[in-house]
């Protein structure tokens, strides 16, 4: 028990030092800027799309066109017409009602984050270990702790940084909704966006783990980034292939074994009212640790 607690303490300390280093080297600022720019870009693009749709609708209804969008879309949010159109895309009535109750900018924020976050998390994860292998600075840290604690501590520290970036990424859609659109409910948007943050953080963890695994396998950070991106793309391709009838017919056992290990298998479960995201998030956390351990056998034997 004491050994377990000591190991846990070491992991916590490594994670803490990883955070302090990120603050000292301004990495945290860069990271948060990347997250906020991504979220801002998505929200701004969607604002433009809403603007175009509203302009067309205004011309059709013979009312003045506005430069600032949002008035019409807020009216449509509660109408039956939109519900009947969307029911084709979301057959589940409860899910449909919930989705239509969300402020308009929160929906693209969530779904675009599901697409973008894996790549950002994988690239960030690739920089966790390999620079230390390259400049051999890891040796000094490993005098005081084990390799597993070092790797998991840095993974955990990076998780906190990703959590911070994901949380701060709610600001751009809020600012755009409040100052560059009309009729957007600030308080409701804030609570919905904050509610979406934990599942998004959980969604990043397996890809962060993939990046950390790549980072352990090479001293070249660029290679590690490349491997991590390749790995992330591969999971999407594999997920697509496993969805095909052909694959299910030809190698059902392979689909049965590998599909549950793909984070994408849980993507839809993260989207829903209440706490439906909790169970898939626990699985994604497990996948995150599991993926990070993929590179550990190599790292454990590496001559530092």
């Amino acid at each position: 028990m004491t050994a377990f607690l000591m190991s846990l303490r070491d992991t916590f300390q490594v994670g803490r030092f990883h955070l302090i280093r990120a603050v000292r080297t301004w990495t945290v600022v860069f990271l948060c800027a990347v997250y906020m720019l991504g979220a801002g870009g998505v929200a701004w693009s969607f604002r433009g799309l809403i603007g175009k749709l509203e302009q067309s609708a205004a011309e059709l209804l013979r009312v003045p066109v506005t430069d600032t969008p949002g008035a019409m879309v807020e009216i449509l949010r509660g109408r039956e017409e939109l519900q009947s159109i969307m029911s084709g895309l979301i057959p589940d009535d409860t899910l449909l009602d919930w989705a239509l109750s969300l402020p308009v900018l929160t929906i693209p924020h969530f779904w675009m984050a599901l697409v973008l976050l894996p790549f950002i998390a994988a690239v960030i994860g690739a920089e966790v270990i390999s620079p230390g292998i390259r400049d051999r600075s890891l040796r000094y840290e490993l005098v005081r702790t084990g390799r597993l604690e070092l790797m998991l501590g840095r993974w955990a520290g990076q998780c906190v940084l990703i959590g911070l970036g994901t949380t701060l990424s709610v600001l751009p859609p809020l600012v755009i909704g409040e100052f560059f659109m009309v009729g957007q409910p600030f308080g409701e948007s804030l609570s919905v966006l904050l509610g979406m943050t934990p599942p998004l953080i959980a969604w990043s963890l397996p890809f962060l783990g993939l990046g950390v695994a790549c980072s352990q396998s090479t001293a070249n950070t660029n290679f590690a980034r490349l491997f991590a991106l390749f790995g992330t793309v591969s999971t999407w391709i594999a997920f697509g292939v496993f969805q095909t009838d052909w694959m299910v017919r030809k190698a059902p056992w392979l689909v049965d074994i590998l599909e549950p290990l793909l984070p994408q298998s849980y993507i839809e479960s993260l989207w829903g009212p209440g706490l439906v995201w909790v169970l898939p998030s626990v699985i994604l956390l497990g996948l995150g640790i599991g993926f990070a351990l993929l590179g550990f056998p190599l790292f454990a034997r590496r001559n530092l």
Partner: protein
Amino acid sequence: MNQIVLAALSLLVGLVLGGLGPRSEVRHLQKQLEEQPDGPCVSTVGADLAALMGGRNRGQQAPQRSPLGDREPAELAEMNPEAAELVESMTDEQERMEEGIREELSSGIGEEEQELARTALELRRAQARAALVEDARPDETQMETIDTAVKDMNDSLLALADEMAEMLDRGEEPTRRDAMAFAADALDTMLVAEDEMRSALDADQIEQLDEGALDPFSYVGPEIIDVLGGMGEQ
């Protein structure tokens, strides 16, 4: 940390192994479903159903020959009560649908069209108000005056529409003069509303505005659709 690593790995192994059974069961059932033959059904329910329904359609001739033997509807109903019951419920359903269609046609504007019209008016009002706010940037007092003018206009229009509906309720046909008076009152109400909106803004603000942003027709509320829809049913 070994324990945490073991816990995570156990979770993943459990996920894979625990899911193997249910997943293969689902696949097996799907396969069974796909393998169901497309050939003729050995049950006589379908044939009896067709024969019973054919017997009820007096305008059409019943099938001349059945591979299962020609039988009278009463005989079929006795032999296959499930099919008879099904036909009964289908006939009731069809009668209800026909009645619904007849009602829909006689009521003039359907519920769906009314809902669309409500949405269109709601969208027009929201967009016109947004354009007014964007171009004229009225302060709180000005906005309050404009909102009051719009509310008064909609109240007056509703009162006029109600008056017309009551007249129709009493079975009175509005004369040409009545119709002209209603139209004049409605236009007057709108002109008053526009004047009030204009008076709330200064000359510079009005100059900045798109003409449509002060058009009182853009501010007509969706509530009037309910009254007008009711008139269509008279």
